[in-house]
C-alpha cells in the first residue's frame, strides 16, 4: 500500500529537531518493499507545537508525537501493523489516541483559515491548486469588482487583526475613491506577544494569503501589493517569497492574470521590529522608508494611504479567509459564527494549559470550551485564575465569565478584546499586578513617543505598578492609575495608546484584592514579586538530599546530608532554582 509520511517542519517542530527526523525517514525508506513507499514532504505548522516533532501517516491519519530519529525505524516496520503505541498522544484518561479524529485537541476545531496548513507543502503550488487553491481568484475574475465586494459583505467577514472592522465595507470605501494608483497591503507584522497564527499561515499556506491579496486588489482596483512581514519571521519570509515567485510563473500574479485584463504584482517589505508598525498608518509610514509613527485618523487610508494613494490593509488571517469565501460563497461562510461575528477565528492557546497550540473554532464558542475542552485544563490540576485575550491591548477575563461566547462584541463589552486571537491561560501562580506591569512595560518600550498621553502616561503607570510590585505602593496609587488610564485611553493618537490601559483597568476591576494585598499586606499572593516573597525549606518535607544546595548560585543553602537544609535569607536572591530542582516539594514560597 502506498503511504505518505508527513513530518511537521514548522518553527516549533524544527526547534524540537524535525529536520533530523525528515533526514532519517528519507534514508530509512530507501530501497524498501514496493508496497511501502513513504512519501515525505515538509508541511507547515500543525498547531500542536508543544508535542513536536509531529509525524502523520496517510491514508490512515495516524499521528505520532515527539518523534526522535531513533524512532523512525520502528515506525516504518509497523506501517502494516498496529501503530507504535508509545508515540501516540495520550488522552486525559491515559488512553492512546490513534488519529487526529480521536484527539480532543482537534475534534471541536473547524479549519477554514488553517484549512491547508499542515496538509499542503507550502513550497509546492500544485499542492495548493489540487486542494482547490486559486479557485476563489478564478471566480472573482469572472465577476465584476462590485460583485466581489458584495460577496465579502454577505459573508460578514471582519478584520482578524484586532479591531474587527468589516472587510467588505473597507473594500467598498476604497473602491469608490477614483485614483490612477491604489495599493493592496497585507499586514504580517504580527506583534502581539502570545499570538502566532499569522506566522503559521504564512509559513504553512502562503498561497492562500497571496490569493486573498489578489482578490482584494481586483475588487478595489489596485495593481500593486505589498506584504509587510516581521523581520524575525525568517521562515515565513522565505516561504512567502517562494510562493510569490511560483505564482508569477503560473500566471496568478503579473500581467493578464488567468487570461483576464487584470494586472497585479506584489513584493515583500521586511519590518524592523517595532510593535507600533502593526498599526495601519505607522505600517504605511514604515513602507515609505520613514520612522513608523502613526498619524491622526481623520485622513482615511482608503482615500490617502500609502504614498498618499487609496490603500487597503488586511491582516494575514483575513486574507486567508477571503480566498475561501470567494471559492465557497459568502452565504455559506455566514452560516458560521454569531450574529455580529461570522466565520471562525484562530486562537493561539498558550500559557498554563495542558494542550497548547493553534486552535480554530467557529465564532461564539465559549472560553470554557477553549480552555478546558480543547486545552484540557490546567497542568497539575492547579486552580484556574484568568485568561488574557487581545495581547497588550486586551484584558483579563476571570473565572466567572468563562461561559462568555467569544466574538468581537462580547469580549469588548467585558473590557477585553479579540485582538489577533492570543489566549493566555493563567493559574494561581500568576500575579495579576505583575502581569499588568509586564504589559505596561512592553507598551512603554514600544510607544513611538509621538503623543504625550501614551508616552508619559505609560511611563508613569509603569512607575506606579513597579512601586506596587516592590512593596512600596500606597492605596492612593490605585486612583492615580485609574486617572492616567482614563487620560491615555481618551487622548492618545492611535489605537495602541487608546487601548494601552486595558490590562491595568481589567486587572483592577477583576483582581483588586491582589493589588490591595501588595499595598496593604505587603504580600504577593501568587508568590511572584521577589521583594514580597521568601523561600523557606519545610523541615518536615526535606529529606536532606543536598540537591538544592548544589544548585544554589549564591551558596545560600547549607545543611548536613539526610537532615533538613536551611536557606540563609541574607544570601538568597530568590531565583527559584532550588524550588524547581526539589523532588520532595519541600520548598515553600511565602
Amino acid at each position, binding site marked *: 500500500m502506498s503511504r505518505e509520511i508527513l513530518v511537521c517542519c514548522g518553527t516549533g517542530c524544527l526547534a524540537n529537531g524535525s529536520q533530523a527526523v525528515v533526514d532519517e525517514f528519507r534514508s530509512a525508506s530507501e530501497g524498501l518493499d514496493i508496497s511501502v513507499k513513504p512519501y515525505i514532504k515538509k508541511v507547515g505548522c500543525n498547531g500542536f507545537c508543544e508535542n513536536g516533532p509531529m509525524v502523520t501517516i496517510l491514508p490512515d491519519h495516524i499521528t505520532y508525537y515527539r518523534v526522535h530519529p531513533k524512532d523512525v525505524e520502528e515506525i516504518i516496520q509497523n506501517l502494516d501493523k498496529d501503530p507504535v503505541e508509545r508515540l501516540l498522544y495520550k488522552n486525559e484518561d491515559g488512553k492512546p489516541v490513534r488519529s487526529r479524529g480521536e484527539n480532543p485537541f482537534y475534534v471541536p476545531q473547524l479549519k477554514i483559515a488553517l484549512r491547508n496548513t499542515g496538509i499542503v507543502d507550502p513550497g509546492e503550488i500544485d499542492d495548493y491548486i489540487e486542494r482547490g487553491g486559486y479557485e476563489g481568484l478564478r471566480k472573482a475574475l469572472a465577476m465584476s469588482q462590485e460583485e466581489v465586494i458584495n460577496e465579502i459583505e454577505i459573508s460578514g467577514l471582519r478584520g482578524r487583526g484586532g479591531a474587527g472592522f468589516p472587510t467588505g465595507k473597507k473594500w467598498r470605501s476604497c473602491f469608490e475613491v477614483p485614483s490612477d494608483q491604489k495599493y493592496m497591503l497585507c499586514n504580517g507584522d504580527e506583534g502581539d*506577544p*502570545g499570538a502566532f497564527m499569522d506566522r503559521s499561515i504564512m509559513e504553512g499556506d502562503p498561497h492562500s494569503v497571496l490569493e486573498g491579496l489578489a482578490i482584494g486588489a481586483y475588487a478595489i482596483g489596485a495593481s500593486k501589493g505589498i506584504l509587510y512581514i516581521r523581520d524575525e519571521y525568517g521562515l515565513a519570509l522565505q516561504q512567502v517569497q517562494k510562493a510569490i515567485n511560483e505564482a508569477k510563473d503560473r500566471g496568478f500574479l503579473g500581467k493578464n492574470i488567468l487570461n483576464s485584463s487584470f494586472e497585479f504584482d506584489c513584493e515583500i517589505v521586511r519590518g*524592523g521590529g517595532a510593535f507600533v508598525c502593526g498599526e495601519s498608518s505607522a505600517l504605511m509610514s514604515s513602507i515609505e*522608508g520613514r520612522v513608523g509613527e502613526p498619524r491622526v485618523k481623520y485622513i482615511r487610508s482608503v482615500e490617502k494611504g500609502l504614498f498618499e494613494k487609496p490603500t487597503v490593509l488586511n491582516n494575514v488571517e483575513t486574507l486567508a479567509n477571503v480566498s475561501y469565501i470567494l471559492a465557497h460563497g459568502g452565504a455559506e461562510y455566514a452560516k458560521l459564527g454569531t450574529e455580529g461575528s461570522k466565520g471562525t477565528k484562530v486562537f493561539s492557546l498558550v500559557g498554563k494549559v495542558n494542550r497548547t497550540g493553534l486552535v480554530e473554532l467557529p465564532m461564539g464558542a465559549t472560553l470554557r470550551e477553549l480552555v478546558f475542552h480543547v486545552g484540557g485544563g490546567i497542568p497539575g490540576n492547579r486552580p484556574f485564575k484568568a485568561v488574557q485575550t487581545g495581547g497588550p491591548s486586551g484584558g483579563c477575563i476571570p473565572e466567572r465569565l468563562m461561559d462568555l461566547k467569544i466574538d468581537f462584541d462580547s469580549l469588548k463589552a467585558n473590557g477585553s478584546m479579540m485582538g489577533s486571537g492570543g489566549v493566555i491561560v493563567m493559574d494561581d501562580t500568576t500575579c495579576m499586578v505583575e502581569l499588568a506591569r509586564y504589559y505596561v512595560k512592553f507598551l512603554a518600550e514600544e510607544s513611538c513617543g509621538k503623543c504625550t498621553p501614551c508616552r508619559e502616561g505609560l511611563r508613569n503607570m509603569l512607575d506606579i505598578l513597579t512601586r506596587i510590585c516592590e512593596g512600596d505602593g500606597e492605596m492612593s496609587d490605585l486612583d492615580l492609575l485609574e486617572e492616567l488610564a482614563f487620560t491615555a485611553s481618551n487622548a492618545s493618537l492611535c489605537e495602541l495608546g487608546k487601548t494601552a490601559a486595558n490590562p491595568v483597568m481589567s486587572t483592577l476591576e477583576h483582581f483588586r484584592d491582589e493589588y490591595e494585598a501588595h499595598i496593604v499586606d505587603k504580600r504577593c499572593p501568587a508568590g511572584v514579586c521577589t521583594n514580597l516573597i521568601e523561600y523557606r525549606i519545610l523541615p518536615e518535607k526535606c529529606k536532606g538530599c543536598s540537591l538544592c544546595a548544589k*544548585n544554589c548560585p549564591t551558596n545560600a543553602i547549607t545543611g548536613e546530608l539526610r537532615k533538613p537544609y536551611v536557606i540563609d535569607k541574607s544570601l538568597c536572591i530568590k*531565583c527559584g532554582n532550588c524550588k524547581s530542582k526539589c523532588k520532595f516539594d519541600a520548598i515553600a514560597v511565602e
Partner: protein
Amino acid sequence: MEENKININDILNRYTPEQRHSLALLQEVQKAYGYISSNNLLAISSYLNVPVSEIFSIATFYKALSLTKKGRIIIKVCDGTACHIRGSINVLEEIKRTLHINEGETTPDGLFSIEIVNCVGSCAMAPVVICGEKYHGNVAMGKGAEIIEEAKKEAESNE
C-alpha cells in the same frame, strides 16, 4: 577586519536610490557588519539623498538596528507573555549571572550579547531562548548555563 570583506557600495547598489528602501538598506548593513557605523549612516544618507538626521532617527527607532557592535553570538531571551508567565525572567537572570553581563551588553571577549525580545511566536514551547540561530524550547532552570556552554564549545571548534 570584517568590514573590509563587504564593500558598502555593493550593498547600496542592490537597491534603487529611493527613500522607501532606507529600512531595507539599514537592515542589510546591520546584517553584514553586525551594526551600523557612522560612516555607513552617512553613505546611506548620501546614496538615498535623505538627510542623515532622518536615517539616524530610523536607525534608532527600529529594534532590529543597532549603532554599536554586538557580540558574535546573540542570545535572545523571549519575554513574550507566554514565556513571561512560564518564568522567562528567571531564565534571563540565570544567563546574566553566567555571563556576568546585563541585557543589551556584550561580553568583554566580544562573543556574547544578551537581548530581550518580545515574542518570537513559539509560545507553545515557552520559555524560549534563541542562541545564535538555534531555538531552545521549554528552557527549565539550569538549562540557560548549558545553552551558553554548548554555544561556547561550538564557537571554539569553529575557530
